[in-house]
């Protein structure tokens, strides 16, 4: 605790096991008053278990927790909240159909003398907090009409109105665009200025450097480091999370996507002037076998919409889409799959996994028509194929019949990747393939992608992580407002040039016209 005062929160020697398997052993966490503390670690390092112990969801097996210099013992999230600890969850726990005010004051509404709700005071209080954050919204309007970012800030406003001393933010930016992220950061700074502490959990290391004072690193259920953020570098943090050597990380590059393009194959597909009714105005794009074409752009610039159009998930309103060896483009995902296109979606939970189904059933979902004879699934073949993918992709599962929801994020993502590799794709569309997975799994997934590119698969890569695009892509097509504005080619792409191209339509010098296809 840089301040030298007694910390606001001090968790020491925390241990917790579930049914015999150790989740935490020797975990600790200290947060100073008015500090923003980052918390990082791979999936399975024990971050969420530690937070759940702090917020009363789980009971610890050993260790001590002190909050405001007194032993803390809470048995439920509500008790934690009463003690001054509020949590902003990844999945928001608000009521979208009720007004902003109602969401902020729910359960703690100001009362009039008659015992009815004092709406005037409630609205005024809500407006005051949100204005303090620099946000102007109609507090009487249903919350659901606001963007995700505003909803997240309303959740924070609720924490503030409950006079939280510590606000826990678990991956708060995973669904925000950059403008919204900077709004969130300004709110975090205001919280800090008013003396509220923040525990900030994120996979995005860049964010930690932007917002945190200190950072705690966890690995295998234990706390391995606690630094002031200014003493750290990105590669030193990655090294600590993985338990590797810093030099090893730095020499290997930041991703596993890079590699010399051997020889690009034939054209897989070419889109010319493609538009859909879904915020895609004009897309010019071509992918060849054995190359990675990146789609660069901000959130909402039309990257996912471009992917959906190519995959036949959205009907084209104009333009032409030509696939090698087909006389017309696929009009449904089923046709796209039959044509050898795979689409790893961005939102693993909503559009990827079928949670009730097993690893095996999830893995073969897209391949199923090819695995059946007269409607009957050839089960021996299915099991053999799944066995092969589990081994070759290193999927950690207790068996192919384990429900996929029980796997970690990184392993779920590998299963979904295998779902598409199994169809022997000619074109793989990967929308944020490494989002929300831990660093180890990320490298493995990147290596798998690279391996298949070298075997001649064409890849269309969407990623918000610039390193992936800069190191991995042979070409990057830059999107702005639903329009592909230009194309850059490697070698020669740097993060600076990419950022410039994405941010300014004026920076065309970094960009060659799209139709100059190699």
């Amino acid at each position, binding site marked *: 605790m840089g301040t030298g005062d007694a910390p606001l929160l001090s968790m020491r020697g925390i241990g917790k096991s579930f049914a015999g398997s150790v989740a935490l052993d020797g975990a600790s966490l200290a947060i100073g008053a008015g500090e923003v503390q980052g918390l990082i670690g791979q999936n399975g390092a024990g971050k969420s278990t530690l937070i759940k112990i702090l917020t009363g969801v789980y009971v*610890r097996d050993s260790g001590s927790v002190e909050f405001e210099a007194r032993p803390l013992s809470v048995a439920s999230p509500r008790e934690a909240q009463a003690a001054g600890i509020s949590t902003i969850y990844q999945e928001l726990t608000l009521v979208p159909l009720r007004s902003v005010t109602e969401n902020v004051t729910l359960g703690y509404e100001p009362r009039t003398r008659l015992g009815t709700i004092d709406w005037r005071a409630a609205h005024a209080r809500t407006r005051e907090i949100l204005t303090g954050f620099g946000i102007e919204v109609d507090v009487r309007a249903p919350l659901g009409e606001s963007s995700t970012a505003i909803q997240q800030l309303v959740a924070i406003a609720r924490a503030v109105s409950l006079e939280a001393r510590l606000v826990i933010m678990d991956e708060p930016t995973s669904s925000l665009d950059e403008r919204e992220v900077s709004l969130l950061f300004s709110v975090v700074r205001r919280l800090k200025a008013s003396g509220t502490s923040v525990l900030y959990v994120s996979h995005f290391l860049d964010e930690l450097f932007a917002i945190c004072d200190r950072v705690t690193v966890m690995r295998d259920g234990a706390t391995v480091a606690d630094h002031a953020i200014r003493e750290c570098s990105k590669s030193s943090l990655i090294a600590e999370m993985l338990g590797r050597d810093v030099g090893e990380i730095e020499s290997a590059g930041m991703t596993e996507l890079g590699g010399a393009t051997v020889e690009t194959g034939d054209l897989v597909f070419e889109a010319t002037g493609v538009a859909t009714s879904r915020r895609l105005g004009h897309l010019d794009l071509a992918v060849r076998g054995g190359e990675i074409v990146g789609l660069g752009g901000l959130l909402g610039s039309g990257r996912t919409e471009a992917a959906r159009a190519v995959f036949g998930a959205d009907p084209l309103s104009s333009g032409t889409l030509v696939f090698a060896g087909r006389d017309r483009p696929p009009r449904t995902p089923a046709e796209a799959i*039959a044509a050898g296109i795979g689409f790893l979606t961005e939102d693993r939970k909503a559009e990827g996994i*079928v949670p*009730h189904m097993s690893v095996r*059933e999830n893995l073969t979902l897209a391949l*199923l*028509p090819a695995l059946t004879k007269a409607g*009957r699934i050839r089960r021996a073949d299915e099991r053999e194929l799944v066995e092969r993918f589990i081994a070759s992709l290193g999927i950690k599962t207790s068996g192919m019949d384990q429900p996929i929801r029980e796997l970690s994020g990184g392993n779920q993502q590998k299963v979904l990747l295998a779902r598409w590799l199994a169809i022997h794709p000619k074109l793989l569309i990967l929308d944020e393939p490494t989002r929300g997975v831990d660093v180890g799994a990320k490298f493995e997934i990147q290596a798998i992608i690279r391996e298949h590119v070298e075997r001649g698969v064409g890849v269309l890569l969407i990623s918000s992580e610039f390193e992936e695009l800069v190191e991995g892509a042979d070409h990057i097509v830059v999107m702005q407002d639903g329009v592909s504005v230009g194309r850059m080619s490697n070698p020669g792409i740097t993060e600076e040039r990419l950022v410039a191209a994405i941010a300014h339509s004026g920076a065309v010098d970094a960009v060659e016209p799209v139709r100059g296809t190699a």
Partner: protein
Amino acid sequence: MSAVVPGAADGRRSRGGLAWRSRLARHGTLIALVALLLVNVLFTPNFLHLQTLFVNISQVATIAIVAVGMTLVIATGGIDLSVGAVMALAGALAPPIFGSDFAVAHPALGLVAAIGLPLLVAMACGAFNGVMISVLRVQPIIATLILFISGRGIAQVLTNGNLQTFSNPAFSYLGTGRVFGLPFQGWLALGIAAAAFWVVTRTIHGRHLLAVGGNERAAELSGVPVRRVKIGVYMVCAFLSGIAGLVVVAINSASDAARNGQLMELDAIAAAVVGGALLQGGRAPVFGALLGAVIIQLVKYTLLANGIEDEVALIAKAAIIVAAVALQQGRRE
């Protein structure tokens, strides 16, 4: 430390409680069945007679047949309120067909038509439900409410609201025949459940069904023909309801459009839920539905045989559903 100890003890106790609850949840249906049988053996007069078995089998068969269809619909995250009305409609169509001059002249063809045409009409009802739900995107509970209300109305209009009695031994075999000494419709229900189980666990159609119920968007993006699956499942459910409707008519040798299949939607949903179906979809425990149907039937029979009124039986049925849902909550943890 003293603050820690009681909390830790609590943790242990609740873990023990969870294990007990999950064990109960997994075998709750079977335990309930055994308990019901025991109560009957002890208190219901003549329960261990063959006649009692026959009565129960012939009555449970229709519930079971419809419950299998309902389970498949629920597995897609849907619900079908129109099953009872479709039973009435199919049942009302059969007697006029085999009573027609054509059927009198050609008994065999007439019998085929008397069974086939009502089932085709039933499937058309299912197609209507499926299209409303998958193409027009009406919520299943509203979409199937349309036929729930109008289906029985159409059946009554067709029969002028009269009870139609008939005598046709070949057709009545559906409801009164015996195979290996047991009622024909019991075998029919078993066969249907076995076929449904095979489709669900062994074929691409079953996998697609569960994928649509488990995560519709993911299924669609993995190439599952979501619309076709949904229309298909409502057609299958209506087809099975149609069979049940014909069985009821055959049992009674009479078609009563006002009563055939009345409240069947509730029995079928209850049987499916008791059998372990999740209302949000993604699971299709077909044999569970069979077990659920047996439990619903046994409760009805127990109360009836012990002289308890029908109204009370309804309350008991509700209690079973509540218990099943409570167990499901336990299972999720």
